[in-house]
């Protein structure tokens, strides 16, 4: 390990190096930064899994919506409706 420890700091989209210390102080600061980085990674992984779990649990809704949409459209078409300008209207039967 380098005897000098620099910490990367992000400021306004730019990354600059910040001198922390050397020797034992530098090593402790480096270990603490590494610990925080791992905690952040673990937390991000946890929330990612949580998000995926929720999305999988609700995935059936997509199937349900598509099914309802197809059956509704088919039912309205055979019941004598047609879609005009985004609105369903009854087809006028000619006398």
């Amino acid at each position, binding site marked *: 390990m380098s005897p000098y420890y620099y910490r990367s700091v992000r400021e306004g989209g730019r990354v600059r190096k910040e001198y922390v210390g050397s020797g034992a102080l530098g090593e402790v600061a480096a270990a603490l930064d590494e610990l925080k980085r791992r905690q952040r990674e673990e937390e991000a992984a946890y929330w990612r899994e949580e998000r995926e779990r929720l999305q999988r649990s609700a*995935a059936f809704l997509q*199937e349900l919506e598509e099914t309802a949409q197809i059956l509704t459209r088919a039912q309205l078409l055979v019941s004598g409706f047609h879609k005009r300008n985004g609105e369903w209207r009854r087809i006028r039967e000619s006398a």
Partner: protein
Amino acid sequence: MKALELSKEAKDQLAELEDLSDKAANGDKQARSELRRALRASTPAVVAEASTLAKKGECVLIKTAAAGEPLMEEALLARLGLLRSEIAGPDPSPLELLLTEKIVAVWMLTELLELLLNAQLGDLPKSQRMSHRFLKFYLGWQEQAHRRLLSAIRELARVRRLESRIPNAQTNVQINVSKPNGD
């Protein structure tokens, strides 16, 4: 957990209905009568399968919302049953049943999201609090669920209105006044 989905047979039937609907919408009269036949033949099976799927999905959402509390699970199940019968009403058509399932399922999702968000707003230790990125995703998802719920309710109302042949709220009145003779 494997995502819940319809069987291949149901999906094939839906694809056929979609294809025939496209043709019928484009004025193909034969496709319209074929669509009528296909719809009559496949609707009960597809609706039954979709309802089963919805109920299984609701159970998953209920388990998440109840967080292992059997009483809460039972209460939510009963609430969904009540909601289902209130929305479907007496003697619903297969389509009304399906749209009811859709409304109930999306309602359950919005409830779940509300519950989880309320838990986050309580006194949780910092380690259990949502990250900002997750919260942003979460609020977006909640908004989407609300939109889906409103759209599902509108869809059922529209189908009922159209099927019952009740005219739109908008009524155009035309009065023809004949000119007096000689003018």
